[in-house]
């Protein structure tokens, strides 16, 4: 075209970013890569290809790691870990800072390589991915520096196995590696098979930064290599970002292994537009929500919910905007949507969309390149909540939409999903936006915005979007554990005995406590409980799965508890303590009768009363944070109740063990289903009578007695339970973790390790963290 012709047509024309340096880097490395283990590369094998999805060209040959290589990587990480941790916060900070600087110095090389390998537009890799990578290393250099002062009781977990997806290859590496290293861990990381190149360039950067050998190890390959990492006995923690299906497999595979686990999984995040929103800005926001990174974003605002009155206008403007999107060569600087990562993903998107026969489909009339993996921006309106496409993640540039009438209905539709990763709320009414944000089941909520990320604000989900947070202070828990040596927990056995009630004694009827009422066990079975002296004390009900069902239903029904104020909850916890204190002697005597001796009972009751005070104190003091994110605005890290917590209580302390889990759960606004000490169940049921007189709303606390190994699987598999804790001396940690995979609920189990319940280990922030979810609500502002 001549200048004159362009003057008339005003086309954009091509604006390609050069790939020469990136190709030179690949060629300099022989266009074939081995594993990065113990500070060096193993010889390359030609097992699989890394391709450019925009044109199908081969970029490099990659090696599928063998079991032997994974073993070597884990061994290198293990060997390096103690020295790395002992290097100290400042020593680690200097190296993380060096990495941040080096990523910055080679930022364009990283960006171009990422775009070649993944297909995302160069604008995004250049302006979003790589700057965020730098930011994560800078931020966590700071966390390493502050660790000793700010987290004096925390230590590294050890060797972390990290498995990351192909949608943000280097960014997900940074999210995983930076906090792990900062806290003194070493890592074995597997990038996704489609997108290994920037991880391999990062390995190069680690060497340039002078990172000690073995601190970072990178193994390449497909899911089989991931499985080797997941099942490796030499790994202390698994961090995974990827699909919910694989996350579930990993949860099952690691169950009972004692490995720590964090999962950042899929989503079907709602994008809610109220009728008072800035409509044009909300339309533009969708470009950053679902047409960012080709829609291959776990937290993509993929489910549009528009208030009925503005829906037609909104759809019309949205379609006009979609028609302006430019799809094409990812290295072109004027491209909005690049290539889908691989043919298989493109096929998956096509299959899902073609399988839908509901609603109205609008595919934007944009030009697509003749070759390569491309898909047009697509909108499907008029879907019902039951539609498959409203429920399942498409992971492509496809937006589905429906309408709502009222704010309450918006919340109901938004939460009508198995996922809970992110959400956007658009409204110019601050009252409305800040009312809706806390009601959404999500780990991240953006008010009048979308897809904002920063190292200072935790990211992660609830429900089947996984558990754990990455970023911020709240993310450090995923890479640390409390200092101290754990002791094995012995199985607590009930007292042996025989015979019936003593002559003249009253029969004492102990019942389960469900929904604020005393309830007979559904099965109609009880078991005798004997005192230390071998004499019968009473019969204790044996709860079964239906009692679990009833208790969970009662707990779910008591959702109002989560909306009470911390002050209200504190008053009730103090009142429970007061009422327990007035019966202290009687409780103490019963404990002594069960456990023998004359003083332990009184000490336990006293400790229980103190503990209730502790959590009454915490109820209005476990504050969230306002994170300093680099926008004009705030990211509010709110502490929200987890929901319904099922807990199998300590066996050895029949009262203190129960109160130690009830306290934090209640204080933070949760409802709980507590399975009392198995050998000493009666104390808990007696305590229920204290609860009855202490203004505890029905269903907030439910107490069952029975066999832990019988009740744990039901509780852990229950889809309406949000978290399960176990401090039982029965060997049920593995069973719980395995069964929790159903809805991917959070678990906190003892792995057969003892806890000093009367001591400081029996209370405090660890419990409060487990009793809360951190939700980051981003509120940009400005007039």
């Amino acid at each position: 075209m001549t200048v004159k012709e362009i003057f008339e047509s005003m086309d954009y024309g091509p604006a390609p970013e050069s790939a020469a340096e990136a190709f030179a880097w690949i060629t300099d490395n022989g266009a074939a890569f081995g594993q990065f283990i113990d500070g060096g590369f193993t010889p390359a094998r030609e097992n699989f290809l890394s391709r450019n999805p925009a044109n199908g060209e081969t970029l490099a040959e990659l090696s599928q790691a063998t079991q032997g290589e994974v073993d070597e990587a884990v061994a290198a990480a293990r060997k390096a870990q103690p020295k790395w941790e002992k290097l100290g916060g400042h020593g680690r900070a200097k190296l993380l800072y060096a990495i941040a600087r080096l990523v910055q110095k080679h930022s364009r090389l990283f960006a171009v390589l990422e775009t070649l390998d993944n297909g995302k537009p160069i604008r995004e890799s250049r302006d979003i991915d790589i700057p965020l990578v730098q930011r994560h290393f800078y931020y966590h250099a700071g966390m390493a520096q502050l660790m000793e002062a700010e987290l004096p009781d925390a230590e590294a977990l050890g060797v972390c196995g990290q498995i990351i997806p192909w949608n943000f290859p280097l960014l997900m590496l940074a999210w995983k590696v930076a906090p792990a290293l900062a806290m003194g861990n070493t890592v074995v990381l597997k990038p996704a098979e489609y997108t290994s190149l920037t991880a391999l360039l990062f390995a190069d950067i680690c060497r340039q930064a002078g990172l000690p050998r073995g601190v970072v190890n990178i193994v390449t390959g497909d899911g089989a290599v991931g499985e080797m990492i997941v099942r490796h006995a030499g790994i202390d923690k698994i961090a995974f970002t990827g699909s919910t299906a694989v996350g579930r497999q990993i949860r099952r595979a690691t169950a009972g292994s004692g490995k720590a686990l964090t999962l950042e999984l899929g989503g079907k995040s709602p994008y809610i537009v109220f009728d008072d929103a800035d409509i044009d800005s909300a339309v533009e926001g969708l470009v950053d929500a679902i047409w960012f990174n080709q829609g291959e974003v776990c937290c993509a605002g993929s489910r549009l919910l528009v208030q009925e009155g503005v829906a037609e206008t909104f759809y019309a403007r949205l379609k006009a905007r979609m028609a302006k999107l430019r799809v094409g060569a990812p290295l072109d600087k004027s491209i909005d949507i690049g290539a889908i990562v691989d043919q298989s993903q493109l096929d998956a998107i096509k299959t899902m969309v073609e399988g839908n026969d509901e609603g109205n489909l609008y595919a934007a009339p944009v030009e697509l390149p003749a070759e390569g993996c491309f898909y047009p921006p697509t909108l499907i309106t008029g879907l019902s909540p039951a539609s498959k496409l409203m429920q399942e993640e498409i992971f492509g540039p496809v937006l589905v939409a429906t309408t709502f009438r009222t704010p309450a209905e918006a919340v109901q539709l938004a939460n009508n999903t198995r996922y809970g990763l992110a959400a956007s709320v658009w409204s110019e009414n601050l009252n409305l936006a800040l009312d809706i944000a806390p009601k959404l089941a999500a780990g991240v909520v953006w008010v009048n915005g979308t897809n904002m990320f920063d190292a200072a604000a935790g990211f992660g989900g609830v429900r089947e979007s996984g558990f754990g947070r990455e970023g911020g202070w709240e993310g450090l828990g995923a890479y640390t554990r409390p200092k101290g040596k754990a002791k094995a927990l012995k199985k607590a056995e009930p007292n042996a005995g025989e015979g019936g009630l003593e002559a003249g004694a009253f029969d004492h009827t102990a019942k389960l406590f469900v929904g604020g009422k005393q309830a007979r066990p559904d099965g109609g079975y009880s078991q005798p409980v004997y005192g230390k002296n071998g004499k019968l004390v009473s019969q204790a009900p044996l709860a079964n799965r239906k009692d679990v069902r009833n208790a969970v239903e009662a707990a779910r029904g008591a959702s109002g508890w989560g909306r009470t104020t911390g002050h209200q909850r504190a008053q009730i916890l103090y009142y429970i303590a007061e009422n327990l204190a007035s019966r202290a002697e009687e409780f103490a005597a019963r404990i002594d009768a069960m456990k023998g001796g004359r003083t332990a009972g009184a000490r336990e009751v006293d400790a229980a009363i103190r503990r209730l005070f502790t959590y009454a104190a915490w109820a209005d003091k476990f504050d969230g944070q306002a994170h300093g994110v680099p926008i004009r605005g705030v990211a509010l890290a709110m502490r929200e109740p987890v929901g319904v917590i099922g807990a199998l209580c300590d066996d050895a302390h029949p009262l203190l063990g129960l109160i130690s889990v009830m306290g934090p759960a209640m204080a933070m606004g949760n409802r709980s289903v507590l399975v009392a000490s198995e050998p000493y169940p009666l104390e808990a049921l007696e305590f229920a009578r204290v609860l009855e007189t202490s203004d505890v709303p029905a269903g907030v606390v439910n107490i069952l007695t029975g066999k832990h190994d019988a009740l744990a699987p039901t509780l852990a598999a229950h889809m309406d339970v949000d978290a399960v804790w176990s401090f039982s001396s029965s060997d049920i940690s593995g069973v719980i973790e395995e069964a929790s995979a159903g809805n991917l609920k959070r678990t906190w189990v003892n792995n057969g390790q003892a806890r000093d319940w009367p001591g400081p280990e029996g209370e405090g922030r660890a419990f409060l963290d487990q009793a809360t979810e951190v939700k980051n609500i981003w509120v940009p502002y400005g007039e």
Partner: protein
Amino acid sequence: MSTTEKQRAAQLPQKMEPRNDGMALDLDWVASVQANTSAIERRAKTLPARRSVKKDHQAAWLLRAITCIDLTTLAGDDTAGRVARLCAKARQPVRQDILDSLGMGPITTGAVCVYHDMIAPARAALEGANIPIAAVSTGFPAGLSPFHLRVREIEESVKAGADEIDIVISRRHVLTQDWQALYDEMRSFRAACGEAHVKAILATGELGSLRNVARASLVCMMAGADFIKTSTGKESVNATLPVSLVMIRAIREYQERTGVRVGYKPAGGISKAKDAITYLALMKEELGERWLAPDLFRFGASSLLGDIERQLEHHVTGAYSASYRHAAG
């Protein structure tokens, strides 16, 4: 109308588009307009990175930008000689050899923009050039002279031969949300303009919020503005991308509802060739290609042309240029 006037009017680019006759003031519509500042700023910030125009395309876009410039002098020391020089530059904004190298025919700027007293010298200097003369009016830049004199000023300027009148609105009507007063004022100005086209200068830097900018834009269009324009160039903050985004979205909504296309003129602060391309891309993305022509888009700028000339010479020769190599305006 005299023959020359008719001729000139017939060649005015505005004649391609039916004029905006306005409509009754719709206060419900005005009240419903929202502008979320942080979201608008994000869009404005990413837009330049989303669209990049290179090589021949860049040269072509810069030439187009020139045709959309209201080449402006609004200084207390303007003289007939100064205005004549400006008009010569408007007739031949780019050195002939550069145009020849680019294979381009002759181009002119979109208009020249002067104060009332400079209309006559400008007319003389532009004789036969088919370049419209825009006059700033209504007590420019503050707009606080007596109302009847502001109306009278328009009439005088039209009589003196101005083809376009750039009026300033009373900012106080916006700041006090007196939309009826703003509408009535704009209506009167529009009526006084007669056949001359009217650009409404909102002085966005003095309106306090983007929401006010959006609402004022809409009210001026309802009252019959042919163009809406950001600023006088005399405020401390002039044309910005966020303000532009708000105003052109208002134009888009007005067109959606009425079918009428209103023009847009960012003024003040646009001095780099790269900025000009960003603005053109903004118009193309948000409003469409129809708005890339001088009848619907103008830059109010004085130093922009110089930077574009240097860029064009660089494009032709491959060597960076110097300002003294291009004719002064």
